């Protein structure tokens, strides 16, 4: 059960936000596209205009997703890391992307943050202003870096100059638990605090979509809880959150939807409890192991 409820509560948890059956091991072990990918195939000819934001998606709560990736494929040399995956995220939804190391999670998140372009496919983000201007996607890289000689507050003040809204840097630092470290040099922050500062940077300007790559990595258990509390609060405020994480306990409690990426495809996609039940596991950690192991057995 998730701690967080999406902006518009779903009536059926097993099809929360997507209205599609979560992919089961049997379904996804084959080379047939998942239900989601089949949807993408059907929409492939639509060629949505990125300027207009994501196309309305009947699978998404409220109709229009905050962000939609359609039929993304990408290869690094001969290694195909993404193979036609599609993902729509509704406002207020928390989607957790899980998968083995090297499964393409960070690559997918970079595409969602629009800092890299896939070989194929499109990413569209709903505009948040009346003029239809390009909406910002808040992004926390896997290893956030900063100019070491600047303080935490200096750093956020620098980024605040690039958004139209007035940014209360002290409030942002407070949100991520770094109020006491405002004047500390970034180079003197611990690894966990650096990650929290990266989260704060992603939140500058209150973006409607936030993409977090391993936000809990290197954090102590207390900080992990704190981080997922922040994520829940963001979703409660209507922010669409996509994150990757190996901390599956908090993911199971917090995420509205878990997407398991392996072999370049989504091998499961649905409410965490439904994913767990689909493989008859006790918890998400076990279900993840079963799903990935099954994929490896089938040679994908």
């Amino acid at each position, binding site marked *: 059960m998730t701690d967080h409820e999406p902006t518009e509560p779903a009536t059926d948890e097993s099809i929360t936000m997507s209205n599609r059956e979560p992919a089961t091991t049997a379904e996804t072990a084959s080379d047939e596209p998942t239900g989601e990918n089949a949807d993408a195939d059907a929409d492939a000819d639509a060629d949505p205009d990125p300027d207009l934001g994501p196309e309305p998606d009947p699978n998404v709560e409220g109709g229009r997703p905050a962000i939609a990736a359609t039929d993304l494929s990408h290869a690094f040399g001969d290694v195909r890391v993404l193979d036609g995956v599609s993902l729509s995220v509704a406002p207020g939804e928390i989607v957790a992307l899980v998968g083995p190391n090297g499964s393409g999670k960070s690559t997918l998140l970079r595409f969602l943050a629009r*800092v*890299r*372009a896939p070989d194929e496919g499109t990413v569209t983000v709903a505009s948040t202003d009346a003029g239809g201007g*390009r909406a*910002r996607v808040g*992004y926390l890289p896997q290893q956030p870096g900063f100019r070491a000689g600047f303080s935490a507050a200096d750093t956020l003040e*620098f*980024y605040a100059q690039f958004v139209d809204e007035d940014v209360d840097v002290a409030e942002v630092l407070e949100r991520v638990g770094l109020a006491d470290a405002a004047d500390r040099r970034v180079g003197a922050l611990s690894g966990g605090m650096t990650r929290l500062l990266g989260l704060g940077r*992603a939140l500058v300007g209150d973006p409607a979509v936030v993409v977090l790559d391993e936000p809990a990595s290197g954090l102590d258990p207390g900080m992990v809880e704190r981080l997922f509390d922040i994520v829940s609060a963001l979703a409660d405020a209507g922010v669409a959150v996509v994150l990757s994480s190996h901390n599956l306990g908090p993911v199971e409690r917090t995420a509205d939807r878990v997407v398991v990426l392996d072999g370049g495809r989504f091998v499961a996609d649905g409410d965490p409890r439904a994913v767990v039940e689909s493989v008859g596991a006790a918890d998400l950690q076990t279900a993840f192991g079963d799903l990935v192991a099954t994929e490896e057995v089938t040679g994908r």
Partner: protein
Amino acid sequence: MSGGGLDDIGDLFAIAARELRTVVRTPAVVALSVVFGLTVVAVAAAGSGARGGYVPLVLDLLPFVEALVPLLAVALCYRAVLSDRESGELDVLRTFDVSRPAYVGGVYLGRGLAVVFVVFGSLLAAGATVPVLSPPDPTFLALNEAADSPVAFLRFAVLAVLFALAVAAVALAVSAAARTARQALALAVGLLVAIVVGVDAAAIAGLASGNLGIDAVPLALAVSPNGAFRSLVLGVAVETGGAGSPTAALAGLVGWVVAALAVAVLTAWRPVE
């Protein structure tokens, strides 16, 4: 969020301010700048130039400036964009919709101002040794006292700044094009060798082999940043004349700046629509 025009200019200045603050807060860069300044002043004080007047001092300093200014400019700029790329800040800046011209322009402005401050400041300090060290009468290199004035030295300092900005732009292009620190270092060293001796050596070789006619010398000098700088100093600052054409030399330096910044803009990142 950037929407072009005024937003881009605001972004540019925000990035420039960050670059300037970064330079000031980097001990190695500060140390290098101090060493540069002390070296220039020491050369001025130790040589005979300062005792002869401003023009002799310019001629004394010219070879040192030709060698040291590229070193300083490259050191300050060759990792500017690369460090942002390596730390992931380049990716994050892109999520704030910062445009490539605004980013590259900001980095160039910030780092360029630091280079200008160090070069101009050091040369002014060197020039200040003339009134202290020179005798009341001009020496053999400045037979006409009227030709030896602080204005000549000031022109030299301004031209040195232009030269530094041209090399800084090329170093910035290196930092944008390089994908690894090793690549950036290799490119920077290659750049230094090419600027300090490479193009001049190629021109001389061309002349010697007959592949380059004597008429092409002004153009050949203008193509090399060092050659262009030397032509401008000899032709404009101290007015001793020279083989180069000041106009072609100035166009050469400006051309290096424009071409290098264009390369930096194009290679900083691949746009995602």
